[in-house]
């Protein structure tokens, strides 16, 4: 195991260090070694599992809901912008 991986292993044994890398993990930006170490920690740590479940929910909520249609006020704002642009000819 490389020096860097030993450092990662030591860090991922601490709940606070796990907490610091959760966005990286949830966004799929974590490398294989770190991800495996994180899974190991999560298996052993109920609090980190509970925290991760809540954290994931926040990330899901942040991605939606998408707007299917524009509300009338926003439609009007776009129309007004278009009209103002036309008037500048």
């Amino acid at each position, binding site marked *: 195991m490389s020096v860097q991986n030993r450092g990662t292993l030591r860090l991922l044994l601490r709940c606070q260090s796990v907490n*610091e890398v959760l*966005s990286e993990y949830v966004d799929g930006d974590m490398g294989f070694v770190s991800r495996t170490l994180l899974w190991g920690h999560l298996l052993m740590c109920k609090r980190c599992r*509970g925290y991760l479940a809540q954290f994931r929910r926040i990330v899901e*909520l*942040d991605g939606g809901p998408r*707007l299917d249609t524009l509300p009338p006020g926003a439609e009007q*704002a*776009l129309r007004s912008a278009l009209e103002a642009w036309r008037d500048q000819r």
Partner: protein
Amino acid sequence: MAAHQADLELMHRVVARDDAAAADLMRQIGRDLYACARRLAPGTQAAEDLLQETMLGILQSAKRYDGRVSVRAWAFSILRNKAVDALRKRGRERVTAEEDPEAHRFDDAGAWREDADFCPWDREAELREVFELCLKGLADNQREVLALRALNQVEGREAADLLGLSRANFRQILHRARQAIRGCVDGKLGETE
């Protein structure tokens, strides 16, 4: 050839005062711009004003678009600048990426304190409402990062560039914002139980 040739051609038509091209552009980006404006502005009316001002700015400065980034990313940079101008007028609030909102929950060895408890949230009906409320309580730079991150069409590097941040700093502010919202949501759902 520019990296975003189709976008460049569309904007050339806008420069040539082609109404259909302007309408096409609005259809392509209007909805996402408004979604982002809602996150950046303090209320619905302010979001609509921001959208109108941004769209007019985009149409007026179409000749400056050079196709090096997507028209969507370019449009968001204009939205962001307009939003920052508005925020500056009312005082822009920033937090640094170093401020860990969860630090108080850990002991000196980096383990959770005894009172840390994270139960699943089972009140789905209230969750969205509480989330939106907590979102409004974030610092302006945190809301900017979340707003851009939520828009899948803007790539991570572009989003960081738009805000003048390094990729690492962007990620760190994003993480702190998510931590802060989680804490806020958990607190508010706990209050009403």
